[in-house]
């Protein structure tokens, strides 16, 4: 019932003569689209650009973040263990020097 009434009403309203849009209307719309897409895809700000790229390549971004996290964890572990090794060597040296005295 509602659909039939709507169709009739729409048909009636469609008969209203609407003045045509200006000559370059569609061209203007297309220019707007270019501007928006250019801003979104190629933002002027470097950080925004990186963020946009990150948004459009989510899997790659997740992989890079995970790899960076893993690398920094391994590096941290390496630094800590090498520090421990250095301390141990210093202890040994000092013990040796004490014993020679």
């Amino acid at each position, binding site marked *: 019932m509602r659909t039939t009434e709507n169709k*009739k009403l729409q048909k009636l309203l469609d008969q209203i003569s*609407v003045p045509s849009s200006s000559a370059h209307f569609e061209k203007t719309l297309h220019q707007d689209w270019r501007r928006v*897409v250019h801003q979104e895809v190629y933002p002027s700000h470097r950080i925004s650009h990186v963020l946009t790229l990150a948004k459009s390549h989510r899997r790659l971004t997740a992989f890079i973040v995970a790899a960076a996290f893993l690398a920094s964890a391994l590096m941290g572990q390496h630094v800590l263990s090498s520090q421990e090794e250095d301390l141990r060597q210093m202890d040994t040296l000092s013990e040796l020097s004490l014993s020679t005295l």
Partner: protein
Amino acid sequence: MSLFAGKQYRAEQDLLKKAVAGDSGASQEIIRSLSQSAYSLAWKMLGRREDAEDVVQEAFIRLWRSAANFNGKSALSTYFYAIVSNLSLDRLKAMNKTAFEVFDELENLPAELVHVDFSDTFDSERISEAVRSLSVKQRMAILMWAYQDLTAAEIAKVMGMNKNSVDQLLFRAKLKLKSELEKGGAYADN
């Protein structure tokens, strides 16, 4: 939603995604298919070419920016008409604040229960005059009702009113349209 319609909506969603990703052909197709009908709807709401063009221009910018929100569960035109209606409504409120705030008397008359037969043929000028004779809110409500197939509750949400007021608006708009069309000597009173 029929299988065919679902397929068509998803194709429109893909087309929009392509346009937003920078595909010029896809954007041209969308602009070509939506711009004239949207302009026509905006003109019927606003009554001025410049305003209608501005609204459609702004609506397209919003469409490109909010493309991710289009889920392909309805026609792209329905989604776009909703943007056009909202922007027209904002413009009407800004242009004619007092006229928009005039409150119609409340009566509990659900729009679904009022059926007016608009099947007779009338000339274009008489229909325009009849539509112009409606109040701003009545015009908005009847255009959303007819073109977007929205329920009274949905129109109420868009217009920031309650459902009963929209039912009342639609009821009055239909009756006024009918009486103006039947009268023959339709006139504008706003």
